[in-house]
């Protein structure tokens, strides 16, 4: 048992026999322990602790020797830690010495993973930003849908189209009326032709001759009939064509009116969807930016918290240095107070380390949570391509298909209208050629009338009847000329109306808008494809990062062992200092000069400057966080 005692006291100084001092006041209370060690009775058969201080064995040494020995042991205890305390101190020192290496095992890997986590986070941010930018190119869709709305009533030209076909029809009716007039003239001309032949026969019987007048009238009459017949047919066709064109216009107008409501509704719906999507993308982008800011902030917290490993390591080194001094001569008298002070410092370090561990865990949790939200918001960006609600793209695609269907019907109607206008144009061209022939007939009539007048003049009074015929023919010629002029005017008006119709139908932008819509639909499909690919890439990156964070959190969870080590050392040190009196000895006070950190000085001051007398330990949460204004430029 003696050997066991001495093993722990190898550094203790044994005082000379005559230097028994009275400074053993603190050590007196410890005397019975050593005496118990040195002079322990054998264990009692009952198993109860043996009674200490059995003097019977010492009787042979004499009373005086015994008293000297007692004083020596008491003095020795005053200047060296006793066995249990020494063992405890050794254990504490051992644990604290091992702490730094064991804590580094967890802190360093977190630091190594931090760079990877941050890089992954930035890559995901880049990918989601790309998706958002891709999806924000809505101007084209908005412009095209706006064009649809502008062009939905055919550009406002159907009034002009209707007016044009009505004009065509009216003029066609007028042309037919004028031709009917010419037909009546022709009938009258036939009668005049008969009268000319009669007069010619009478004068031939008396020896006079009108030459070929009657033949000329007959031939012209035949020519007129043929030409007027053709012209009348053309006029009838023109009238029919104009009626068809009018009916087509009315049909087109009806079709457009029927389509106008659905077209407006569908287009407005599409515009609203695009606008809503734009807002959603913008909102999601802001949320994503907030999440990535959260990740950056958490990374910053980890950067700060990881540094506390070094700070706490240095604090513990200072504690170890102070505890090791207790083994040196002259310092053991301050054992209790030194231990008490270092217990306070260790409590501060333990609390600081615990806070840093919690900060790292919280920050890792925050990163995990934010990246989880990034995954959700990214899905919202592309509209749940995994098959949830109908995505934005699918909805707009359906809208565009519906709008295209309506516009296709409008385009077909416009096409029929253009064909009708073309038919009218062709009929008018045909009639123009025919009318030229009618105008020639009038000139021929004039010639015949003049010829008859001359011949009637040659005949003198006998040619009075012929003169009348000649004048009648001349009248017919004038009427015929007037009728052909009328026809020509109406044809000219018809040509003007046809041009107006062609311009009005050519002004329809259905084809142009349809082409724009198809192009936009193709572009949207391409954007959707790219966005989905981007989403898949981002999802892979997010999954990888989640796994990395999970592994890091699991790995860092094992730091509880380090905390337990510090907690155990702290408890042991506190236990050793329970009985220590706070005297503020010079030796302990002088330790303050060795502090390099503000937190250490604060702990010291809280013990010796501001803490109440009956308080054994300072508050556990002594300040060890970042100092304000921790930067200074020289």
């Amino acid at each position, binding site marked *: 048992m003696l050997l066991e005692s001495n093993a722990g006291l190898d550094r203790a100084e044994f005082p000379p026999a005559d230097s028994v001092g009275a400074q053993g006041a603190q050590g007196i209370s410890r005397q019975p322990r050593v005496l118990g060690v040195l002079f322990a009775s054998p264990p009692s058969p009952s198993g109860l602790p043996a009674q200490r201080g059995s003097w019977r064995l010492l009787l042979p040494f004499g009373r005086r020797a015994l008293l000297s020995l007692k004083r020596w042991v008491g003095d020795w205890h005053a200047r060296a830690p006793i066995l249990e305390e020494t063992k405890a101190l050794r254990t504490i020192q051992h644990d604290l010495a091992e702490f730094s290496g064991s804590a*580094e095992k967890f*802190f*360093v890997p977190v*630091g*190594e993973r*931090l*760079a990877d986590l*941050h890089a992954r986070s930035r890559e995901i941010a880049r990918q989601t930003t790309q998706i958002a930018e891709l999806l924000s190119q809505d101007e084209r869709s908005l412009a095209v849908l706006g064009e649809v709305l502008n062009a939905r009533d055919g550009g406002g030209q159907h009034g002009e189209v209707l007016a044009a076909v009505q004009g065509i029809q009216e003029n066609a009716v007028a042309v037919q009326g004028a031709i009917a007039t010419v037909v009546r003239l022709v009938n009258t001309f036939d009668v005049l032709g008969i009268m000319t032949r009669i007069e010619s026969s009478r004068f031939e019987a008396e020896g006079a001759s009108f030459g070929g007048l009657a033949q000329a009238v007959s031939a012209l009459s035949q020519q007129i009939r043929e030409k007027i017949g053709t012209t009348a047919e053309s006029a009838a066709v023109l009238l029919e064509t104009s009626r068809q064109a009018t009916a087509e216009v009315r049909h087109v107008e009806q079709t457009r009116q029927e389509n106008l409501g659905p077209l407006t509704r569908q287009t407005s719906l599409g515009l609203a969807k695009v606008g809503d999507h734009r807002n959603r993308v913008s909102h999601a982008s802001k949320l994503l930016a907030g999440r990535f800011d959260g990740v950056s902030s958490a*990374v*910053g917290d980890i*950067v*700060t*918290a*990881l*540094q*506390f*490993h*070094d*700070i706490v*390591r*240095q604090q513990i080194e200072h504690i170890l240095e102070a505890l090791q001094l207790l083994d040196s001569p002259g310092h053991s008298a301050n054992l209790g107070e030194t231990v008490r002070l270092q217990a306070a410092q260790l409590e501060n370090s333990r609390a600081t380390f615990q806070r840093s561990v919690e900060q790292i865990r919280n920050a890792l949790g925050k990163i995990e949570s934010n990246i989880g939200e990034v995954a959700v918001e990214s899905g919202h960006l592309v509209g749940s391509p995994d098959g949830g609600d109908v995505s934005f793209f699918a909805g707009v695609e359906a809208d565009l298909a519906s709008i295209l269907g309506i516009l296709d019907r409008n385009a077909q109607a416009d096409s029929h209208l253009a064909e009708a206008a073309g038919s009218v144009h062709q009929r008018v061209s045909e009639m123009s050629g025919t009318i030229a022939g009618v105008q020639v007939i009038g000139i021929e009539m004039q010639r015949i009338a003049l010829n008859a007048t001359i011949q009637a003049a040659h005949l003198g009074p006998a040619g009075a009847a012929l003169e009348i015929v000649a004048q009648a023919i001349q009248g017919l010629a004038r009427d015929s000329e007037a009728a052909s002029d009328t026809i020509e005017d109406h044809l000219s008006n018809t040509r003007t109306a046809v041009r107006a119709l062609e311009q009005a139908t050519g002004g329809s932008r259905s084809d142009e808008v349809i082409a724009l819509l198809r192009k936009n639909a193709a572009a949207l499909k391409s954007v959707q494809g790219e966005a989905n690919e981007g989403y898949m890439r981002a999802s892979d990156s997010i999954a990888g990062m989640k796994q990395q964070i999970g592994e890091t959190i699991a790995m860092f969870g094992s730091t509880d062992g380090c905390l337990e080590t510090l907690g155990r050392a702290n408890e042991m040190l506190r236990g050793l200092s329970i009985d220590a009196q706070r005297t503020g000895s010079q030796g302990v006070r002088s330790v303050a000069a060795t*502090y*390099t*950190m*503000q937190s250490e000085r604060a702990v010291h001051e809280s013990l010796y400057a501001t803490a109440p007398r009956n308080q054994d330990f300072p508050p556990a949460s002594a300040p060890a966080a*970042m*100092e304000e204004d*921790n*930067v*200074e*430029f*020289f």
Partner: protein
Amino acid sequence: MAKTILTVDDSTTVRQMVSFTLTGAGYNVVEAKDGQDALTKLGQPPSMVLTDLNMPTMDGIGLIKRLRAHPAFKYIPIVVLTTESETTKKQEARAAGATAWIVKPFRPEQLLSVVQKVLG
């Protein structure tokens, strides 16, 4: 061209965090575990030195004095990054030739602000 910063600290975690912060901002970082190690890594003069004070073999004050004594490094910005906040130590570093002083722990934006201010 990216600027190079030499970081000197006996703590692996601190060197890690300094490197992480500065490389993330586009700087090149060279690490050394104490003053002696730092001197062996000065083949190409860095734009700036960031050093701890309490290190084995050669401490921060010793490193600063050695650097200031060398013509090539006489005017390089040297920032002290330390747990210490004691005035006499600060004055000692200043007298040795330090440019600025940061007390640990730093936040990334703080460190970057100091570096940007020092490097201009």
